[in-house]
C-alpha cells in the first residue's frame, strides 16, 4: 500500500500554489464583495495548463485525471480563495472537460476539448429544478422528438455560471419520470450553445441573490421550445443516467476538495489568531477550550483528505466511487463548517467584523452542507445503499 501522491499530483500542488501565492486573502475578499469572477487567476491557471489537466493530451490537455483536478481545487481553495472558489474548477474543468472527455462524441471532443483545456470556452451544468432538487430523477424538463430535432421545455434552478458559459450540459427527460422504468432511464443530456439559445429567445436566466460564493452567479433558467439536434446529445438518448453519475460523483469530489481547502484557510486563520491574541496574560491558544476544537478540526481535515483522494483515484480507475465520493463530500463539508465555526469562536467578537475573513469563510462553508446535495441525502445513501437499512421513501 502506497499513500504517496503521484508525481503529477505533487507538481499540480506546487504549480497551482505558485500561481495562487500572488493572490492574497484581500484579493478574494474583493472578488466576493464586487461579485466578480477571478479573471486574473483564471487566466494564469489557463495559461499554465492547470485548467486542462484532465483533458487528454491529444486534445491539448495535461492527460491527467480527477485526482489532479482534486488537488488543484484543494490547493486553490487553501490558498485563501476558500470554498467559494470551487466553481473555478467545478464548472469548466469538471462539468465540461471531464464529462466530454469520457462521454462526448468524437465531434464534440474535437470541437470543444481543446478550447476547454485552454480555458477559452466555459461550461455550466443544469440538472436541478424548482420541484426536483434532492429527488433529481423527478425532473420534468422535457425533450420531445420532432423529426431530426428535439424540442426542449422546462425550468431549472441554482444553475451556476450561465453568464460565462458558451455551452450548458442540460439534463432532460425524453421519457417522463412517471413512465420511466427503471426511474433512472429516460434521461438525456444535451449540449446547449448558450449564447445562441439566448439570442434566439429560447433560453433566459435570472440570477438569485445569495449569501456567499458571489464570484459566480447562480441562476433560475427558463427554456421555451429550444430546438436541439441529435448531434447535441452527450452519451446516448434515454441513457443520460450513465453520464449523470460521471458528472455528479466528480462534482461531489471537487466540491469536497474546495470545502477542504476552505477548512484549511479557516483553521490557519484560527491558529494564527489563537497564538497572537493574549487574554489574561497568555495567548488564548494555550487554553484547551480553544486548542482542542482546532486540533479536532485538523484531524477531520486529514481524514476527509484521505477519502477525497481515494474517491478520485477510484473514479480515474473507472471503478465504482459513489460511496467514497459521498463520504468524502460529507466529511469535507462538515470539516469546513466546523473549521469556520471554531475560527469564529476563536476570533471572539472580532469574527463579526468584516475586516476579518470569517464571515466569508462561514458562508462558503455553510452552503457545502446542502449543496450540491444535502448532508441528509448523503447519510441516506450510506444508510440504505451501504448499510442496507430500509428506505423511508
Amino acid at each position, binding site marked *: 500500500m502506497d499513500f504517496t501522491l503521484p508525481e*503529477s499530483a505533487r507538481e499540480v500542488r506546487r504549480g497551482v500554489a505558485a500561481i495562487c501565492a500572488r493572490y492574497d486573502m484581500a484579493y478574494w475578499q474583493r472578488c466576493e464583495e464586487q461579485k466578480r469572477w477571478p479573471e486574473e487567476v483564471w487566466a494564469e491557471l489557463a495559461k499554465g495548463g*492547470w485548467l486542462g489537466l484532465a483533458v487528454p493530451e491529444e486534445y491539448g490537455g*495535461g492527460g491527467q485525471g480527477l485526482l489532479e483536478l482534486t488537488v488543484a481545487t484543494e490547493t486553490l481553495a487553501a490558498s485563501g480563495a476558500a470554498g467559494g472558489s470551487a466553481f473555478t474548477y467545478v464548472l469548466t474543468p469538471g462539468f465540461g472537460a471531464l464529462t466530454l472527455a469520457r462521454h462526448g462524441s468524437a465531434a464534440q471532443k474535437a470541437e470543444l476539448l481543446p478550447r476547454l483545456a485552454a480555458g477559452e470556452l466555459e461550461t455550466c451544468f443544469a440538472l436541478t429544478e424548482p420541484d426536483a432538487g434532492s429527488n433529481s430523477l423527478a425532473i420534468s424538463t422535457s425533450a420531445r422528438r420532432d423529426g431530426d430535432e428535439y424540442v426542449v421545455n422546462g425550468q431549472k434552478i441554482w444553475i451556476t455560471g450561465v453568464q460565462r458559459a458558451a455551452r450548458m450540459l442540460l439534463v432532460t427527460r425524453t421519457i417522463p419520470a412517471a413512465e420511466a422504468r427503471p426511474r433512472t432511464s429516460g434521461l438525456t443530456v444535451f449540449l446547449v450553445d448558450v449564447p445562441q439559445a439566448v439570442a434566439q429567445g429560447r433560453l433566459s436566466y435570472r440570477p438569485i441573490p445569495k449569501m456567499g460564493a458571489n464570484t459566480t452567479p447562480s441562476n433560475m433558467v427558463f427554456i421555451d421550445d429550444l430546438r436541439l439536434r441529435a448531434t447535441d446529445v452527450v452519451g446516448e438518448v434515454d441513457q443520460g443516467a450513465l453520464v449523470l453519475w460521471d458528472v455528479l460523483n466528480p462534482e461531489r469530489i471537487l466540491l469536497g476538495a474546495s470545502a477542504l481547502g476552505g477548512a484549511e484557510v479557516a483553521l490557519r486563520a484560527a491558529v494564527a489568531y489563537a497564538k497572537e491574541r493574549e487574554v489574561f496574560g497568555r495567548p488564548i491558544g494555550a487554553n484547551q477550550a480553544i486548542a482542542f476544537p482546532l486540533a479536532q478540526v485538523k484531524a477531520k481535515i486529514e481524514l476527509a483528505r484521505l477519502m477525497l483522494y481515494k474517491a478520485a483515484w477510484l473514479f480515474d480507475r473507472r471503478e465504482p466511487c459513489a460511496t467514497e465520493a459521498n463520504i468524502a463530500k460529507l466529511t469535507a463539508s462538515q470539516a469546513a463548517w466546523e473549521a469556520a465555526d471554531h475560527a469564529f469562536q476563536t476570533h471572539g467578537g472580532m469574527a463579526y467584523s468584516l475586516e476579518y475573513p470569517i464571515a466569508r469563510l462561514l458562508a462558503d462553508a455553510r452552503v457545502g452542507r446542502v449543496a450540491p446535495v444535502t448532508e441528509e441525502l448523503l447519510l441516506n445513501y450510506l444508510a440504505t445503499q451501504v448499510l442496507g437499512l430500509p428506505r423511508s421513501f
Partner: protein
Amino acid sequence: MNIVVCVKQVPDTATERKLSSKDNTLDRDAADGVINELCEYAVEEALKIKEAHGGEVTVLTMGPAKATDTIRKALAMGADKAVHLVDDALHGSDALGTSHALAQTLKKIGFDLVILGSESTDARTGVLAAMLAERLGTPQLTLARKVDIDGSAISIERVTDYGYDKVTATLPAVVSVVEKINEPRYPSFKGIMAAKKKPVQTFGVADAEIDTAQVGLASSWSEVTEFAVAPPRAAGTIVKDEGDGGAKAAEFLASKKFI
C-alpha cells in the same frame, strides 16, 4: 543559436540562512535550495531569444547533487537540456574558481551566447559574467535591461546610475541581465512533466578539464575567517511632537550626519 544559461541554486531567502561551522562556507543543507531569482530572468531571456531566432537553450549549473531541482525548474520553463557540473573538488570555490570551472565547461559544450543573472542572492559578488568573458576571450555585456540580436551582432541596454548605455558587440558573447529585462514565465504543467524527461548531462572536474589547483576551498583567494549572527535590530528612536517635532527630527538627522 546555441544559448547557454548559467543558473545557480541558492538558499531560499525566505528561510534562515546559515554558514557551516566546519569550514565557514554556506551550509547548503540547512535551507531549502531554490533557483536564484535573477537566473530566472536569464532563462526567460534565453527562451525569448530562442523563440525569436531559433536554436537551443542549455542550462549549465555548478552545484551539489541537490541542484538538480534547480535544473529541472529551468527545464520546466522551456530550456532544452542541461549540464550539471558536480564534483566534491569544487566545494568552497570562490568567484575566481567558479569562473574557471564554468569557463572550462563552456569550452567543452560550446556556445554562441552565454546568459547569466547579474548576481546571486547568496554571495552577491556580481563579478562572474565579467570573469567568464575574460576567461573565454569574448565580449562582456553586463547589467542588461534589454537585449537585441541581429545576425551575429548583439546589443544591450546596460543599466547605469544615470540611465542606460547602449553596448554592442559581436557573438559569441557573455551577457548578464537585471530584473528589469522581462517577466519570467511560470512553468506550465506540460513544461514541468516534459522537464522530467529532458537530458541532463553530468560533468566532473576531469570531464571539463578543470585545473583542481584553481578551484575548491583551499584554492580560494577569499576566505571567511569568522562569522557571527547579526544582532537583532535595536528599537528605533521615537520623536514626540510637542510643537517642535520638525526641529527635533532635524537635530536627530544632524546627529547622524545625514544633514
